[in-house]
């Protein structure tokens, strides 16, 4: 019988536990998860690359929404659990949801430790635990300014490096003599400090922070020696504490963390706990490898399979700061019974130290060059006697057995049990076995099948070497990702060849570029159709059968097969005549729902497909056209009332928004394109999270772009300032055309900008006036073919077959 499993917390540990559980005991449990965060399970280890801008949130999602649906998991997002009632075996959320359980798993993680210093609750004091913290830091970094990071451990240094890359001036305050003193010895800590200082990060060791200054918002930090450091934000990264309050309130045994045995059982036989919130045999854990070990144990426990239980093991540490190579594992304190081997190369910034006891490695610290880390770790775990290789041990694996080996041979020489991926506990044999057994050829394949290099990514190089060593020349890491399985070519090659070879139809592209399928697929056909529409205006005939249904019938399909209809309201302005026509249409066609959209217009929901042309005819008659709310194209231009009405308005933002929308409607773009114009920096039109946004100021128009406010939230970047409305229009239009020509299909403007880089965009549409003019003119030319209302065309009979059944067979007469 299916049992009810409730999980409090949706971090990496319970996520991994469920993966195992669904694999070993599918269908055994009906699972419900309560997540205090408003999102799915993501890779917290990778928050640092998100902060530094090297990855996006999408890149670090572990389980997308589809995963939960596939496994029948009910996931409550942004719902906190208020209490556990162990007698009734229920939990109650802060929102009042009561959920009964047969088994309960507590995975509440940890909380940042806030040292009890004056001012630690001021606005601008942030911690570094989850995506919200990262977003808050990135937002603060927009203003440049000063950041102070308190804590020079792993987390603090990754935050510092990320904020520095985001343009802030950063000071790290650390209370010990050298950085990362729990993982590094003083020599390596010193080298690390030197590297960070070279990157412009200030480091103050032996810092004793006494006060965070400011009235309501942080202004600075005061140290015990009386010195003061200015700060616009302060990041607290001095450590974490298990989040055990819920368990404590429920009367479970709690010390520092929730006390569990080696099988992850709490003091209540129906309740388990795992992750950073627990304490096993007196220890708490914060790195991912032991948490994943716990996940394996608990999954086996729930599946009623035998397990040896959780045993604490040595864990290697790496710092995820691009360009800093650092590896540390084991015990590196000094002692009479210990022996050490040290290699230093001051010029190259390399430091390696091995700590030995009875000729066995018990610890290793590597700085500057870390590729032998996993090998040393392997020797440590296997307690190998190193007497025979002592002379060359520090030089690494390549120097064992005489002549030096190249890195590839070194990887090939690793034993099958050697651990490659520390985060996920994947050994070499499992990876090579999957490569040969399952025919894997790419890094992504290996990640999908073995999880190796799928968490922090620091073993990616090793995994690639294994692919190379196993597949030989068949492994080609430089290969571009093909557009779809129908071709080997990537988006950029296809587009380049479309122009170079003057290919002007989909069959022509498929023939000339040697497509592997006769008719393409649902991925490449819409892609090619867009490229051809954008590259050959007036020559290419749009292929409706290669468009997704929404763009084919110019309305948005809903989950029940009905459609939604959104007429344009230029710049969000409307009038009684339009509103009356909308009301009449809603009545006449019994449209069940009418809603105001986020883009300042009105959505008619639940229109039957066969009614669409008649609905459009009535809207057309009142002067309205398609709002293209379904299109990979220009959607809305949101405006505020600007200088017409607002006492703060500096320019006619409404008028400019309407002008932009009238100029640009009908244009197809790689992905949807949303604009906004705000009349002053108070920004009521929310222009700074749009694809392109304008903030009017006294002296003219600040043009922003590359914002996002959907799956990902990202403020815009300032592109440039324009003195006049005409100049602003020309720049915005040129920018859109550049994006039309360079963007890959379905790539939003912020992703395109990140890929090609802001400097190249500036060079094309801001600094070089001739280029700007050329892009502008190409857009204007294309518009002469694009600005035809698709609703009016269909009212006049185009694609009539879309809106009528082919044949009708009568309904049986009811109840006869």
């Amino acid at each position, binding site marked *: 019988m299916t049992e009810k499993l409730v999980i409090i917390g949706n971090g990496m540990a319970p996520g991994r536990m469920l993966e195992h559980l669904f694999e070993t005991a599918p269908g055994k449990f009906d699972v419900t998860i309560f997540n205090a965060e408003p999102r799915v399970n993501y890779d917290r280890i990778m928050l640092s690359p998100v902060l530094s801008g090297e990855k996006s949130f999408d890149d670090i999602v572990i389980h997308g929404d589809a995963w939960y649906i596939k496994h029948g998991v009910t996931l409550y997002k942004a719902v906190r659990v208020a209490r556990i009632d162990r007698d009734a075996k229920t939990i109650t959320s802060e929102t009042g949801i009561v959920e009964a359980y047969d088994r309960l798993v507590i995975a509440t993680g940890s909380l940042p430790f806030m040292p009890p210093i004056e001012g630690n609750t001021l606005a601008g004091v942030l911690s570094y635990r989850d995506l919200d913290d990262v977003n808050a830091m990135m937002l603060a970094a927009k203003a440049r300014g000063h950041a102070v990071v308190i804590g020079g451990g792993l987390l603090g240094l990754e935050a510092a490096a990320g904020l520095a890359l985001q343009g802030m001036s950063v000071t790290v305050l650390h209370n010990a003599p050298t950085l990362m003193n729990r993982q590094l010895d003083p020599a390596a800590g010193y080298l690390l400090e030197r590297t960070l200082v070279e990157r412009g990060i200030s480091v103050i060791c032996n810092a004793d922070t006494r006060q965070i200054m400011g009235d309501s918002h942080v202004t600075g930090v005061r140290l015990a020696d009386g010195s003061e450091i200015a700060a616009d934000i302060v990041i607290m990264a001095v450590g974490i504490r298990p989040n055990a309050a819920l368990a404590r309130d429920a009367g479970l045994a709690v010390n520092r963390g929730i006390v569990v045995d080696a099988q992850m059982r709490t003091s209540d036989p129906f309740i388990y706990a795992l992750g950073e919130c627990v304490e096993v045999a007196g220890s708490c854990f914060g790195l991912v490898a032991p948490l994943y070990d716990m996940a394996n144990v608990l999954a086996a426990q729930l599946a009623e399979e035998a397990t040896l239980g959780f045993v604490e093991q040595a864990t290697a540490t790496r710092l995820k700061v691009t360009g800093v190579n650092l590896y540390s594992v084991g015990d590196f304190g000094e002692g009479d019974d210990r022996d050490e081997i040290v290699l230093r190369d001051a010029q190259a910034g390399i430091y390696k130290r091995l700590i030995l006891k009875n000729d066995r490695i018990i610890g290793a610290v590597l700085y500057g060059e870390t590729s032998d880390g996993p090998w040393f770790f392997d020797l440590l775990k296997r307690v190998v006697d190193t007497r025979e290789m002592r002379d060359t041990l520090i030089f690494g694996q390549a120097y064992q057995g005489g002549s030096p080996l190249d890195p590839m041979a070194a990887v090939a020489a690793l034993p099958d049990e050697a651990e490659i991926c520390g985060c996920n506990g994947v050994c070499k044999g499992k990876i090579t076995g999957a490569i040969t057994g399952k025919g894997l050829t790419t890094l992504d394949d290996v990640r999908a099948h073995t999880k190796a290099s799928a968490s922090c990514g620091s073993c990616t190089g090793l995994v690639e070497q294994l692919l190379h060593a196993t597949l030989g020349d068949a492994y080609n890491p430089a290969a571009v990702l093909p557009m779809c399985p129908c071709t080997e070519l990537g988006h950029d090659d296809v587009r380049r060849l479309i122009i170079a070879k003057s290919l002007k139809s989909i069959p022509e592209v498929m023939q000339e570029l040697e497509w592997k399928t*006769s*008719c393409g*697929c649902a991925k490449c*056909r819409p892609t090619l159709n867009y490229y051809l529409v954008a590259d050959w205006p007036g020559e290419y005939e749009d292929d*409706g059968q290669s468009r997704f249904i929404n763009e084919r019938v110019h309305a948005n399909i809903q989950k029940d097969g009905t459609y939604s209809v959104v007429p344009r309201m230029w710049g969000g302005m409307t009038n009684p005549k339009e509103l009356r026509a909308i009301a009449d249409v809603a009545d006449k066609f019994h449209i069940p729902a009418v809603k105001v959209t986020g883009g300042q217009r009105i959505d008619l929901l639940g229109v039957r497909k066969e009614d669409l042309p008649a609905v459009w005819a009535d809207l057309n008659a009142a002067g309205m056209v398609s709002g293209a709310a379904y299109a990979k194209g220009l959607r809305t231009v949101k405006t505020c009332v600007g200088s017409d009405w607002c006492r703060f308005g500096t320019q006619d933002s409404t008028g400019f928004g309407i002008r932009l929308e009238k100029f640009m409607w009908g244009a197809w773009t790689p992905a949807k394109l949303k604009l906004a114009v705000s009349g002053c920096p108070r920004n009521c039109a929310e222009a700074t999270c749009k694809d392109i946004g304008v903030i009017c100021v006294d002296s003219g128009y600040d043009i922003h772009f590359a914002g996002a406010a959907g799956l990902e939230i990202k403020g815009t970047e300032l592109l440039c300032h324009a003195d006049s409305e005409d100049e602003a229009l020309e720049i915005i239009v040129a920018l859109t055309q550049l994006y039309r020509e360079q963007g890959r299909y379905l790539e939003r403007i912020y992703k395109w900008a990140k890929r090609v880089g802001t400097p190249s965009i500036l060079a094309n549409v801001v600094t070089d006036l001739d280029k700007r003019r050329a892009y502008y003119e190409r857009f204007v030319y294309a518009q002469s073919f694009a600005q035809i209302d698709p609703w009016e065309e269909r009212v006049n009979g185009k694609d009539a077959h879309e809106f009528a059944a*082919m044949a009708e067979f*009568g309904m*049986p007469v009811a109840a006869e």
Partner: protein
Amino acid sequence: MTNWIEIGSINAIPRRGARCVNTPAGKIAVFRTQEDQIFALENRCPHRDGPLSEGIVHGGSVTCPLHNWVFDMATGKALGADVGAVRTYAIDVVDGRIFIAADTMAVAAE
């Protein structure tokens, strides 16, 4: 003996497209490929009831517009990693006119 009912001409359906036949039991989607092959499937994806007639037709397959399941139109079976099948209906084409088996329609009406 099979009793065939005419539902229309193949030219009523665009190449790489589909039209629906409404029956008392629901909609049947009739597809026409680039090579003028005709297939008939229940107009309902087994995943989340997506209207397959609105999908993109490529080769002998159609991709559901809601969540991109791909079906082999000849067998009705889902392709790739997804598992499932959609009901198929027997079709005959004579001189460009499409016929559907009446008994399958009767089954559909049950």
